[in-house]
């Protein structure tokens, strides 16, 4: 008797769960249809435009000929001809890399200091908690490109504007992520520090930081990957780096240079992603041993 009722109960629960899952799927489907209506997606337009995409891609492809591949930079059809501007690209790419690196380091340091004040369990007072949270939201909410336009206007064209823009955005997003890591930490070591008469700073340094540090480093590396990509885009508004050159060659229709630069950017992003992915994996592995 007992068995039967518990079976019924189980079936009931499963039925309810299926019902909710199904309703959710239907809701999402309706949502997708409605939003595509609102933003006016037109499939036929999309299909008509497709060939133009192909045209552009074929235009920017380099004219490489297999028998001339390794000739000098004066001979059309060689790689050296395609990448005649390589030293300049590399210099700009290095600038982009440095912009991202500097913005990540400064941004995550600022984020670290603010995150202790912006986490519910570690903030020393609620007014500070509230105001730091709002400030972080502002930094995170304004797109980097807007900050970049603003600072290009204020400071003039050049990498500094891009660095400041990325630093602000990095501070905003890492500050929030860091504070969430703090909120998920174990409170017991902090309680012990407090009970032994430690002040707030030593509670943070000894009670909290050792627990959260691997997570924080992992987030900062992830942010570095994002900033590498962001810093190329920021060049479009005059904030320095390879992006500025890319914008130039696109506007002047130097087709082959477009593909040369894009390929370089893709290679850089991939290698940074691989490297930082490897580092992140190892940090968590070492820490968990």
């Amino acid at each position, binding site marked *: 008797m007992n068995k039967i009722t518990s079976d019924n109960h189980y079936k009931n629960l499963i039925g309810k769960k299926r019902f909710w899952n199904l309703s959710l799927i239907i809701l999402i489907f309706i949502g997708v249809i409605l939003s595509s209506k609102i933003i006016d997606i037109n499939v036929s337009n999309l299909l008509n435009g497709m060939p133009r995409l192909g045209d552009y891609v074929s235009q920017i492809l380099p004219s490489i000929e297999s028998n001339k591949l390794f000739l000098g930079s004066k001979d059309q059809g060689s790689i050296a001809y395609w990448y005649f501007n390589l030293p300049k690209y590399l210099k700009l790419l290095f600038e982009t890399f440095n912009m991202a690196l500097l913005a990540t380091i400064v941004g995550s340091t600022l984020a670290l200091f603010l995150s202790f004040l912006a986490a519910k369990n570690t903030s020393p007072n609620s007014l500070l908690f509230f105001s730091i949270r709002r400030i972080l939201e502002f930094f995170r909410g304004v797109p980097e490109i807007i900050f970049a336009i603003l600072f290009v206007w204020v400071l003039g064209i050049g990498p500094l504007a891009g660095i400041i823009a990325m630093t602000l955005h990095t501070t905003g997003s890492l500050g929030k992520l860091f504070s969430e890591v703090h909120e998920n930490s174990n409170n*017991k*070591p902090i*309680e*012990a*520090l*407090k*009970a*032994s*008469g*430690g*002040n707030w*700073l*030593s509670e943070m*340094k*000894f*009670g909290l930081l*050792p*627990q959260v*540090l691997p997570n924080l480093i992992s987030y900062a590396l992830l942010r570095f990957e994002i900033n590498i990509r962001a810093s190329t885009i920021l060049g479009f508004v005059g904030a320095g780096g390879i992006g500025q050159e890319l914008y130039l060659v696109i506007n002047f229709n130097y087709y082959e240079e477009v593909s040369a630069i894009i390929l370089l950017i893709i290679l850089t992003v991939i290698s940074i992603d691989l490297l930082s992915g490897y580092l992140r994996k190892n940090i968590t592995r070492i*820490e968990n041993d």
Partner: protein
Amino acid sequence: MKPLRIKNLKKKFKDTVAINNINLEVEQGKITGIIGRSGSGKSTLLRMINRLIEPTEGSIEFNGIIITDIRGKALRRWRSECAMIFQQFNLVDRLDVLTNVLIGSLGRSYSFLNLFGYFSKEEKINALKNLDRFELAEKSLQRSGTLSGGQQQRVAIARALMQKPKILLADEPISSLDPKNSKKVMDDMLKINREDGITIICNLHSLEIAKKYCDRLIGLSEGEVVFDGKPNQLTADIAKKLYDLDDE
């Protein structure tokens, strides 16, 4: 030496009364055990003594200082004089044992350099000596998370000793340990009480251990003192009442 004086102490959490009008004097140099069921207010009482929990009413006095009134630096000094160990040990798992012990000195002698991980040679030697008292010196460079529960609790006692405390509050120190490790931890507490003269106030679940180690027992039930006396005065009848055994 004057006793720790608790006067008309009360603690309310929203609607529930956790501690209801407690008056106690705890003599120095003794081991006082606080016994009672879970939820009887033992932990709340202990945490109010070092102000991890603020009392709703009443006062606590020690050596002429009203503990319940102090703030800031004075409060931190009191907390360092009144060390605490916990049921879950509350060590920083990712730090090595030595650093965990050194942390105990932060309340007593804090310097800005500590924030960069620097501790003076004197404190380091001190920490090693304390670990050595509990036969844990050879573990000092191991991560504390890798130690057994009993070892972790004894590291916590070594950390407490770094505070050079007058009082040690122990909140269920052996509740998550097996009998063998429980005995070791209790023996170590007895040792620091007898050798260093540190007053110990200890919340205990086990009546048997409380009777064996404590000089005085205080029974709490629903936030009130229902027994106060020597271990041999605690009769089976009172114990039954204390733990509500008739219900089962």
